[in-house]
């Protein structure tokens, strides 16, 4: 089967939706999932209007049974997966000092944001390893590299995602399957509004940060960290 297939988690809004649209425009067949059915169906309809082939599955990717169902349905429909973008994540409460952070919310954000790329990657890997190729792109954040006050569990979880990605990239070196992380930078999304409600500077449109993801879908990079807003669309990280 020559058609390339990408799956994107949390694809019903924000960056995930922008990524789904850009990959569909590039001719990828798409498997997308989100927790909310209505927005997911909207996204699927929009992709189909572009002429894209789409499998949209309502799924909570922090649940391994949902991950199994989502990835299996996509593999059954398209025969394999070339690109996985682990985009789904949650922010938790707005700006909060760690010392004030509710314990249950902290646990929930850490579990959601770290478990979901672990589970989805683990499920997608066997197919990629059998075909000796695949690109896994994990979405991180500037606060996954620098500790910044009041970014709380979200920031801690993104440090975790970067660690998970680095370990997996090392373990998969030479296998044909590549793992990289992308910091999309600050974007005009609901999540950013939660994180910085009083933001008074201009934010990027999610549609403007997709080039680096398209680059990584087919490049040779492994174990690299990219910043989307300083990525040169011609192929070089600047």
């Amino acid at each position, binding site marked *: 089967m020559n058609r390339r297939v990408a799956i994107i988690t949390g694809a019903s809004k924000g960056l995930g939706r922008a990524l789904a649209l850009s990959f569909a425009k590039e001719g990828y067949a798409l498997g997308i999932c989100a927790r909310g059915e209505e927005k997911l169906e909207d996204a699927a309809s929009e992709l189909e209007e572009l002429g894209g082939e789409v499998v949209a599955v309502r799924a909570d990717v922090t649940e*391994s049974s949902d991950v199994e*169902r989502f990835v299996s*349905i996509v593999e059954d429909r398209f025969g394999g997966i070339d690109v996985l973008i682990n985009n789904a994540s949650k922010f938790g409460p707005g700006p909060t000092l760690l010392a004030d952070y509710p314990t249950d919310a902290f646990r929930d954000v850490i579990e959601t944001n770290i478990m979901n790329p672990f589970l989805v990657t683990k499920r997608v890997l066997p197919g990629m390893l059998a075909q000796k190729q695949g690109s896994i792109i994990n979405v991180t954040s500037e606060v996954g590299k620098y500790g910044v006050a009041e970014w709380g569990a979200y920031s801690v979880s993104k440090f975790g995602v970067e660690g998970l990605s680095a370990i997996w990239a090392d373990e998969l070196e030479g296998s044909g399957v590549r793992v990289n992380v992308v910091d999309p930078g600050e974007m005009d999304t609901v999540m950013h509004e939660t994180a910085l409600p009083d933001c008074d500077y201009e934010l990027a449109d999610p549609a403007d940060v997709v080039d680096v993801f398209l680059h990584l879908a087919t490049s040779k990079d492994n174990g690299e960290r990219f910043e989307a807003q300083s990525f040169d669309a011609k192929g070089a990280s600047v």
Partner: protein
Amino acid sequence: MHAFSIPENLNAQTPAEIVRGRRDQVRLLSIDKDQQLFHNNFNEIDQFLNPGDLLVLNNSRTIPPVLEASQGNHTFEIRLSRKRSSTSWEALVVGDFLAIDRPIQLEEKVEAMITGHGSEHPLVTLEFSISGSNLLDFIYRNGEPVRYEYIHRPFSLDTYQTVYGSVPGSVEMPSAGRAFTWGLLEKLKRKGVRLAFIQLHAGLSYYEKDRWPNPNNHPEAFCVPEATAELIQDTRRTGNRVIAVGTTVVRALESAVTSHGEVEPIEGTTRLYVDEGYTIAAVDGLLTGFHEPEASHLHMLTAFLPKKKLMSAYHQALEKGYLWHEFGDMNLILK
């Protein structure tokens, strides 16, 4: 055909990773080409493989095929066995007599009609009211793995997967490769053992009430990809061995043998029955579990080893307490 019985305490009831922390912590009984027996831990399997040998694995992934069903107040169980089309499956109905001219009610108002006999008694064909990805989604959300009577805990679907399973479609786990971890497969690759994959979607292995599938009437969908066929040809050309991980792999590869004795890429359905009288053409060794006396899988083993030797090995396995079934110990037979 084969006279032995499996004592209750030799039914593996729990996966090794739960009992001993890792799925490769099972035992390995190896029988070499001189029919000598060796007893090892499974993670020592590298001792029996040489650089250049090709391990062929079935990367079909297990789906949860057991569905609750009803007609009026009468409830029963459906076990899917083989996909026939985007709306139709062959299935086993476990329970009392059904009205065949009335729809079967499933969860979420999904319905199925019995449209005829399956490939062999007692299977039937079912036509569902939903199709394609929606039907698969429904099966995942409502189905359970097949758990036979020696399993006393409701292990999740994850438990019924090999680490390398990828292509959904088997209704029972192709369990011969269950004990492999990625770490062990990497160890074998570092030694120079090569890996290749086929897909064969395993159907039900038991129809209840002492009824067993006859391979001649038990078609299974399979695929031998081009890259795998090439690796097999290359392995044989260079005098190395092709080791099938599981009877499903033997069935798929032997179904792909041309009249010139070469393995070709192929996708289709096989009814091949490999037993004592069959001459194996594509495979030099088989890694498998321990099988029940009635199972056709056991008949296949006699194509690799004389029946007397096989029974002698099985009696030693019984004496030494090897464990049977999908969570059990492993048996490597080299020709």
